[in-house]
């Protein structure tokens, strides 16, 4: 427990200090990574804690990007507020989507999320007057921060802002899953009928968690639009939903931290493999199948098992901590 806390603090310090030491190219990559980590973590609320598999998470990401793009292009709201507002708007829209999708369970739920995602993709392409069609929207400005503050719109400033968003979201989600709300979610994951029988309206909890997951994914999308300066329909395509699902599963679902590691792993593999070969997507698919078959608890699950074996004595205290007992639930 102590060890994971120390590691966490070290990682945070390293991330904050990174702009001082890393070259510009690496900073661009790191900013993208922070955004994708937020995106992956948001999906973990659904997939990892509530067992709601979504194949349409790109819908939330893309919607956030488009809302942010439109707000930045047509208003003068400062950058931090644009990102928060976009996230909130996506969260509100998601209530309706979640209401529809939770009509179904299991596989049907997954397919409904996919249908909504593809619907968003179709709208982004067809509604040319607003979304710019298949070209998307480009030249998205980063409006100066509140009180004419300009630090956030620089490269380093934006990175630190994205990092702050990631960590604030992480601590919010961690508090949420440790609260009674999170216990109900885990109950739904393990045995929904039982939770229902205990008198909880599980549908309402599911709608809430889907909306929250979409909200954070929307925040990631908004950050990406500000970061890259464009939003296009590709961000809504189902392959993006697939990629983020890979990050969650490969990293380790139901741990919040795991999906972030998954995002790091995904980006590293993408960059390393795409230098060597054009077929990196193929290897990604194979790696993914391998993880689902042989290591369903992901990278974090493997790391935890190693840690536990090495420090056999601390086993008891480690498994009682939800943030380190990554693979505990599926055993």
């Amino acid at each position: 427990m102590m060890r994971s806390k120390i590691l966490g603090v070290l990682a945070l310090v390293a991330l904050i200090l990174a702009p001082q030491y890393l070259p510009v190219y690496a900073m661009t990559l790191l900013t993208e990574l922070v955004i994708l980590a937020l995106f992956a973590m948001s999906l973990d609320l659904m997939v990892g804690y509530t067992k709601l598999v979504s194949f349409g998470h790109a819908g939330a990401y893309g919607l956030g990007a488009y809302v942010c793009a439109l707000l930045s292009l047509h208003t003068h709201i400062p950058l931090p507020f644009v990102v928060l507002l976009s996230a909130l708007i996506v969260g509100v829209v998601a209530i309706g989507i979640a209401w529809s999708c939770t009509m179904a369970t299991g596989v049907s739920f997954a397919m409904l999320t996919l249908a909504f995602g593809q619907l968003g993709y179709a709208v982004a392409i067809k509604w040319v007057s607003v979304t710019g069609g298949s070209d998307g929207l480009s030249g998205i400005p980063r409006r100066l921060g509140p009180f004419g503050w300009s630090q956030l719109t620089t490269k380093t400033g934006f990175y630190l802002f994205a990092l702050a968003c990631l960590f604030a979201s992480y601590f919010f989600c961690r508090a949420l899953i440790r609260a009674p709300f999170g216990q109900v979610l885990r109950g739904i994951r393990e045995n929904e009928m039982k939770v229902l029988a205990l008198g909880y309206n599980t549908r309402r909890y599911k709608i809430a968690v889907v909306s929250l997951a979409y909200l954070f994914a929307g925040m990631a999308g908004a950050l990406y639009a500000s970061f890259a300066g464009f939003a296009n329909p590709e961000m809504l395509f189902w392959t993006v939903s697939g990629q983020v699902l890979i990050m969650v599963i490969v990293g380790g679902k139901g741990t919040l931290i795991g999906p972030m590691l998954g995002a790091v792993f995904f980006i590293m593999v993408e960059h390393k493999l795409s230098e060597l070969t054009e077929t990196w997507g193929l290897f990604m698919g194979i790696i993914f199948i391998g993880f689902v078959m042989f290591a369903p608890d992901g990278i974090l699950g493997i790391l935890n098992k190693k840690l536990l074996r090495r420090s056999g004595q601390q086993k008891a205290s480690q498994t009682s901590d939800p943030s380190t007992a990554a693979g505990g639930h599926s055993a």
Partner: protein
Amino acid sequence: METFSFILIQTLNALSQASLLFFLGSGLALIFGIMRVVNFSHGALYMLGAYIGFTTARLTGSVWLAMLIAPLIVGLIGLLFEIGFLRHLYKRDEDAFLLVTFGLTLVIAEVTRLVWGAPPLQVPLPSGLDGVVFIFDEPMPLYRIFLIAAGGIASSIIWLFLERTRLGLLIRATSQNSQMVHALGTDINLIRSGVFALGCALAAVGGVLAAPSVTASLGMSSAVIDAFVIVIIGGMGSFLGAIFGSLIVACVQTFGNFFFPDFALVFLYALMLGVLIVRPGGLLGKEA
């Protein structure tokens, strides 16, 4: 007369579309019926069928041969995947199955892109079917009439197979209670492998048949959504439901595209949601 011929033509169009959707949806329904899980790679296999059909047609010069070879190859791929991977996942929850078949989708999509490239490929019409017939002075491609016939014949054969043969009986029994079938001395692993391969082959038939009218393209793998809409509407795991579902979806697509081209997709999803609200198990599904 004007409206009558219009409705007739559009109905024929819808029926030919329904026949393509039938091949796509019935395979998914059969697989779901036996394994209680969704094969996410169904759209990718449908696409692969179209591409293999393209190559066969180019090498042999015969689209008819392509209609035979593509399902065989895709069925074999399905068989190997079931034996190599899926078989080991029946004890896990349904999510593992969904995720593994999703991984297969990625692999197939990538392999297809590497082998055939990204631009769409034109598959010729089969010889003898490239003509046009006139119905009330309206042109109707002969190929569409052929599609309607093919869908009608194939659905009848599969239905008779499921309802009137001993093997069909075993398949239906397995979908109702696999453990009992196993206890009575039938190797259900064999049935599962066989049905999975059959379902994949059906998807490939759909892909080959669709290819001449839509061109073989990487976007075809999104057909898994259509397939799933059909199965949701018709009823999970119900073969008759899949036929019914393809007819409904084809009608919504054809008439929706004609009257409200920008909103056809919305109608389809609204229809699916409506069915889920009124009958969560689908129109012909048994489970509520």
